[in-house]
């Protein structure tokens, strides 16, 4: 059976070491198996590694590998191959995986089917990193032959192997006959087609040109649910939607909104997150005030998502010594973001904020945000399995993508400690403590969490929505 999947974008280079797009990861899910995988409830489970354990000081991770696994080019997967891949990820000049593996000191083959990671300092998030691109093992033979050009013909150990790619048109994979778990694969061929326009994507599904689409527009949810020939699936994602306030990033930070946390608190209080969810996302999203969605185990129940409180917001504005506060907000130029921010604009206006919107295409928005040339910037994060990935690099003083340039040693301390502990209870406590401080300083105003929404034809069964937004094809069947 052939499966055609409509994606929102075209993937970038198909090399797990170099890739950076979300849709790229969707393709890898079918093509490249990882050392470990994630379940829909975000538990880490074996994939290419069958078992693992941490040393007592949390500085050594040993993994047992599955035996009898072959890459698509029929070379066997063993500890050597894993070491080669991880080293490649750490040393290839073009590699985008360096920061993910920054804590790794060295990686060695302890036995033919056992690898040992030695860390510079304790880092429990490594396991989560290995559940994604950093942990995708590629054929050492192909990697050596193609080098940085591996993406032109990727060779991994996943259920499907690469057939062809036409940029902006399609990526075609076919079933790999020697896949270790081939009994669970019921699809013979997968084609991914990038169709950016949501209306058109749905139209293609309806007309039968596609079997399945990702990121259905929330506004189309109702009509898909009504459609007897289609199946609807959604799940709240692990990322977030947020507004970054320029706290200390360059001269433009020097404004009341960046300086006075009361204004940011007032701003947040003036937003009716439920209304946003209803109007823009037809109830498919959830409101939020933390880097994790309310259904996440890491969400701090002590700080519930605030209801709109205009009086309090007005009072805070007054307290800060203002009547009206001018704020410039840069937003990405896609229609949904524009719709949402226009609503926010009119909501906060009632509390005394005169927001002017600056709609900017994404590349510009990103560089303005990095350069600190903004007051308030809408920025979303696709989310990581480990909570650290949703917070550490954004909030810590030296965080790689800390564009607000918020810096609080106390928060840094808490987040670093959370990273080092292998005990989830300890970690949770640290994150809760940080959440309290962040909710007060509010460098980032969290707005909520979107859902991943899929629509499929009725004859496609066995698809399990996953909060990481991936499309896992094991178990998926196509009838007729």
């Amino acid at each position, binding site marked *: 059976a052939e499966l055609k999947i409509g994606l929102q974008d075209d993937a970038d280079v198909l090399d797990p070491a170099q890739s950076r797009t979300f849709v790229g990861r969707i393709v890898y899910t079918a093509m490249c198996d990882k050392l470990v995988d994630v379940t829909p409830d975000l538990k880490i489970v074996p994939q290419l590694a069958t078992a693992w354990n941490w040393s007592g000081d949390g500085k050594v991770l040993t993994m047992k590998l599955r035996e009898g696994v072959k890459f698509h080019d029929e070379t066997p997967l063993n500890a050597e191959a894993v070491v080669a891949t991880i080293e490649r990820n750490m040393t290839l000049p073009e590699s985008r995986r360096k920061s993910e593996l920054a804590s790794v000191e060295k990686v060695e083959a302890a036995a033919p089917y056992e690898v040992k990671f030695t860390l510079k300092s304790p880092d429990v998030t490594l396991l989560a990193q290995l559940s994604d691109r950093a942990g995708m093992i590629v054929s050492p033979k192909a990697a050596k032959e193609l080098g940085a050009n591996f993406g032109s013909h990727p060779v991994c150990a996943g259920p499907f192997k690469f057939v062809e790619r036409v*940029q902006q048109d399609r990526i075609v994979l076919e079933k790999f006959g020697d896949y270790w778990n081939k009994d669970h694969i019921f699809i013979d061929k997968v084609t991914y087609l990038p169709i950016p326009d949501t209306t058109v994507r749905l139209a*293609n599904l309806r007309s039968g040109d596609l079997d399945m689409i990702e990121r259905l527009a929330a506004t189309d949810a109702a009509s898909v649910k009504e459609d007897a020939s289609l199946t609807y699936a959604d799940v709240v994602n692990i990322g977030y939607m947020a507004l970054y306030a320029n706290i200390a990033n360059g001269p433009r930070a020097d404004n009341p909104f960046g300086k006075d946390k009361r204004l940011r608190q007032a701003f947040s209080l003036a937003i009716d997150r439920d209304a946003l969810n209803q109007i823009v996302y037809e109830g498919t999203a959830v409101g939020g005030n933390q880097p994790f969605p309310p259904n996440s185990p890491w969400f701090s129940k002590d700080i519930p998502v605030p209801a709109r409180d205009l009086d309090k917001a007005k009072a805070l504005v007054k307290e800060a010594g203002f009547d009206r506060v001018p704020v410039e907000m840069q937003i990405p130029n896609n229609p949904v973001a524009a719709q949402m921010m226009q609503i926010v604009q009119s909501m906060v206006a009632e509390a005394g904020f005169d927001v002017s919107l600056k709609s900017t295409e994404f590349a510009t928005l*990103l560089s303005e945000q990095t350069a600190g040339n903004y007051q308030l910037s809408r920025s979303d994060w696709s989310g990581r399995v480990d909570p650290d990935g949703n917070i550490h690099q954004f909030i810590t003083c030296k965080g790689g993508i800390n564009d607000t340039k918020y810096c609080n040693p106390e928060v840094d301390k808490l987040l670093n400690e959370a990273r080092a502990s292998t005990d989830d209870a300890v970690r949770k406590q640290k994150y809760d403590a940080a959440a309290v401080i962040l909710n007060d300083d509010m460098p980032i105003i969290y707005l909520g969490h979107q859902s991943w929404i899929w629509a499929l034809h009725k004859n496609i069964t066995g698809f399990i929505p996953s909060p990481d937004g991936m499309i896992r094809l094991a178990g998926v069947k196509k009838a007729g």
Partner: protein
Amino acid sequence: MYTYIAKRLLVAIPTLLIISVFVFSLQKLLPGDPILAMAGEERDPEVIEYLREKYRLNDPVPYQYVSWLGSVLKGDLGISLRTNQPVLELVAEKLPVTIQLAIMSMIFAFVIGVPMGILAAVKKNTVFDYLANLIALSGLSIPNFWLGIMLILLVSVKLGWLPASGYEPFFSNPLRSIETMLMPSFVLGNALAATLMRHTRSAMLSVLSADYIRTARAKGLSERSVVLEHSFRNAVLPIVTLSALLFGELLAGAVLTEQIFTIPGFGKLIVDAVFNRDYAVVQGVVLCTAIGFILMNLLADIVYVLLNPRIRAAL
């Protein structure tokens, strides 16, 4: 004739140089850091620095231009920053798509625009003329993205007649290929038909009042022969020039339509590349479309010359 072509090609060289400057300055003109755009969500500083070096972004601008031009002249358009694919390969991959789309659109434009223009001219100031103008103008005033979506919803989803999008290479399955391109080329052709119709109409009007048409009538020729032979064959000259211009524009101008129908042609390639700041692709492809545009104009001039005995003899 050959000297004429050679001369025209020589004149194209300065034009291409200017285009190369335009195209290159796009990179400097556009805000947004290309490296940032491709560093990924994590934006690893080490990677960023490496890429900056690799793509020579730390060199002085004139130096960058000269070295870029140098490799372009050697036939090397660089590689896509986003997918590492050589730009030349990308161009070769998209060119057939773009050309097929352009040709089919032109066919639509001609089939709709030219007969309507002729009739409107012959029946000037009658109901037919007004109607033809109205239809043409509606083609001109309906944005492509809108018409495209409407067509998909109607033809593909409601009626299920044609595939909603996608592309099939012509030589792998010609019928299916034409089928997939039918709607997008209609959308594009429809807009062009308006321009074509209006130009055909005015060219026909001026020819119809020419002395030699009166001569043709005085000979006792049938109206059909007067209109289609004597008039249209003369009126077609400006239309040829215009179509080359339109065709040239189609090479890169079908952005929105390609986007709606997800046709992997030049337009979509360029726009995506602009938004991703994939400059090697932007520069390479725009340069290619510009060359295409110039070649199309040259072709039009040659056809013009061939159709016009007066200039033909002068060469």
